[in-house]
C-alpha cells in the first residue's frame, strides 16, 4: 500500500454550487463533512447537509430574524488558534413566567475541533465539551455540588432549554423547538453544565470571558454590549479588593496598637497631688478653697483631675479652676458628680457614678494649684471626697477611634462583595422569593 501523498487538500465543500431547495438561495458550507444540518440564510429552512438534494428538514414560520453578534463566517484568534463562526442558535428557558433567551455561537477549527461561545445580556462564556465526569459532592446548605479537577461547583439552576432560532451549520441534528434538561453548576469564573437527553448526558465546561476579549479576538466593530446584572459564573470583582483591604487593615491596626503601647510606655502618669476633703452645704461661710501648689513637669501635655466621693443617692457640683501660679493662666471647668441606686421589680439599678475624671489637654509645665468650689443641696448630708491630680496620663480612646474608623472601607467592601453574590444568586433556583 502506498502511503497517501504527504498532504491532501480537502475542498471547501463537496458539492459545488449548493442552493436551497426551498428558495434557491446560494449556500455555503464552512464545516466540511462535519456539518450535518445547514440553515438557509434566506428562508431559514433547516436542511439535511448529508443529502445531495439538501432535503428540507424544517421550515421557518415566524417573521422575526435575529442577527448574531458575531457574524457567521467571522474568524477570530482565540488562545492561539484560529476559529471560524459557523453556526448560531438562540435558546430559551422559562422561569417564573419570564422567558430568558441567550445566544450560542459554534466555533470551528478543522484540527482542534469545536467550541462554543454563549452570550446573555452582555455576559460571555467560552465553553467546550467535557470528556470526563464530574462527581457528585456533599450538598452544602441546600445546594448540591459536583466536583471536577479538584474544584467544587455549586448547583445554580436546572431548567429546560429550548432551541428557538438557528442559523448556519451544525455537526449534529438540530431542530427548532427541541429541548433538553440543562443543569448548571458554578465555581466562578467557571461553569459546568450537563444536558440530558434520553440517550445520553453530555457535560461541558465554560469560563467567563469579557465581551472585550471576544470583540478583540474577532476584530468586531464598535463595542460589545454592556453586561447587565450579575451572571451565574461572573467572577466577583470585589474578592481581591476586599482581601487586600483587610490585609492592610490588619497592618494599620498593628501600627495603631503600637502607638497605643508607645503612649502607655512613654507617658509619665505621675501623681502630683492627692488630698481628702469634706463639704457640707451651708456649714462653712465660703465653699471655695485652694489646694497647695504642685509642679506639672515636662512637655505641654494633659492633666487629669479625678474626684472620688462617697455620694449615695445625692449629687455634688464641683467648680474647678487649675491656675498657673506664675502666669495667671487658668483652666476653668465644672463637673457634676451624682450617684443614685435602688431596687425595683426588675432588680437593683444605679444611675451615675460616685467618681469623676476630667482630663485637660495642652497644659504647659509650671507651678499650679487648684481652686475648688463645691455645691450641693442645702439640706443634704456632707460629702467626703478625694481629689487626685495626675500629669501626662495615657488613654486608649484614640486607639478605638482609629480602629473603628479604619474598619469602614474594608467593611463596606465586604458588604458590597456579598451584595454582588446575593445579586448573582437572585437568578438561581435558590432565590429567596422562590426562583424557577
Amino acid at each position: 500500500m502506498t502511503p497517501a501523498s504527504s498532504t491532501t487538500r480537502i475542498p471547501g465543500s463537496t458539492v459545488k454550487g449548493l442552493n436551497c431547495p426551498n428558495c434557491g438561495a446560494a449556500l455555503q458550507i464552512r464545516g466540511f463533512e462535519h456539518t450535518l444540518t445547514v440553515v438557509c440564510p434566506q428562508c431559514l429552512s433547516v436542511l439535511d447537509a448529508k443529502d445531495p438534494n439538501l432535503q428540507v428538514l424544517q421550515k421557518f414560520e415566524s417573521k422575526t430574524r435575529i442577527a448574531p453578534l458575531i457574524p457567521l463566517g467571522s474568524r477570530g484568534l482565540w488562545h492561539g488558534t484560529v476559529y471560524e463562526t459557523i453556526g448560531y442558535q438562540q435558546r430559551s428557558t422559562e422561569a417564573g413566567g419570564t422567558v430568558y433567551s441567550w445566544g450560542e455561537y459554534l466555533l470551528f477549527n478543522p484540527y482542534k475541533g469545536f467550541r462554543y461561545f454563549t452570550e446573555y445580556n452582555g455576559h460571555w462564556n467560552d465553553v467546550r465539551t467535557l470528556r470526563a465526569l464530574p462527581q457528585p459532592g456533599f450538598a452544602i446548605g441546600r445546594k448540591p455540588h459536583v466536583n471536577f479537577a479538584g474544584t467544587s461547583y455549586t448547583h445554580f439552576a436546572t431548567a429546560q432549554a429550548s432551541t428557538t432560532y438557528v442559523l448556519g451549520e451544525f455537526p449534529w441534528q438540530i431542530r427548532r423547538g427541541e429541548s433538553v434538561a440543562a443543569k448548571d453548576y458554578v465555581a466562578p469564573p467557571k461553569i459546568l453544565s450537563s444536558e440530558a437527553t434520553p440517550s445520553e448526558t453530555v457535560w461541558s465546561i465554560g469560563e467567563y470571558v469579557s465581551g472585550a476579549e471576544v470583540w478583540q479576538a474577532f476584530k468586531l466593530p464598535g463595542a460589545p454590549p454592556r453586561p447587565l446584572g450579575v451572571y451565574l459564573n461572573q467572577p466577583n470583582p470585589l474578592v481581591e479588593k476586599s482581601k487586600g483591604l483587610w490585609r492592610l487593615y490588619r497592618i494599620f491596626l498593628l501600627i495603631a496598637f503600637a502607638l497605643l503601647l508607645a503612649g502607655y510606655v512613654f507617658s509619665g502618669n505621675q501623681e502630683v497631688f492627692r488630698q481628702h476633703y469634706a463639704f457640707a452645704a451651708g456649714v462653712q461661710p465660703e465653699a471655695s478653697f485652694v489646694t497647695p501648689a504642685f509642679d506639672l513637669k515636662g512637655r505641654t501635655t494633659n492633666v487629669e483631675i479625678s474626684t472620688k466621693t462617697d455620694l449615695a443617692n445625692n449629687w455634688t457640683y464641683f467648680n474647678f479652676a487649675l491656675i498657673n501660679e506664675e502666669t495667671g493662666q487658668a483652666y476653668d471647668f465644672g463637673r457634676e458628680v451624682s450617684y443614685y441606686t435602688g431596687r425595683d421589680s426588675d432588680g437593683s439599678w444605679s444611675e451615675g457614678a460616685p467618681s469623676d475624671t476630667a482630663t485637660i489637654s495642652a497644659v504647659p509645665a509650671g507651678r499650679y494649684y487648684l481652686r475648688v468650689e463645691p455645691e450641693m443641696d442645702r439640706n443634704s448630708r456632707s460629702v467626703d471626697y478625694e481629689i487626685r491630680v495626675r500629669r501626662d496620663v495615657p488613654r486608649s480612646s484614640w486607639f478605638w477611634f482609629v480602629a473603628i474608623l479604619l474598619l469602614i472601607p474594608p467593611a463596606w467592601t465586604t458588604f458590597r462583595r456579598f451584595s454582588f453574590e446575593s445579586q448573582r444568586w437572585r437568578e438561581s433556583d435558590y432565590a429567596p422569593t422562590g426562583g424557577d
Partner: protein
Amino acid sequence: MRHPLYLLYALMLLGVMGLAEYNGLPFLGARTNEVKNVPKTVRDNPGAYRSIYGGYYSHYVGGK
C-alpha cells in the same frame, strides 16, 4: 500601589492618633474655659475668684 485611597486615609488617621498621643490629647477631654490673668490674690482669697479675667473682659464685670 493598590488601594491608594485607603492608604492615604489610614495615614491621616494614624497621623492624627500619633500627634494626639504625643501631645497627650485626651479623646474626650473636659471642656475648659481658659481664663487669663488670674490675680495672685486668689491664692489667699479663693472666694474672690471670678471666671472672667483678662481677654475681652479685662475689667471687673458682674455684681459687687
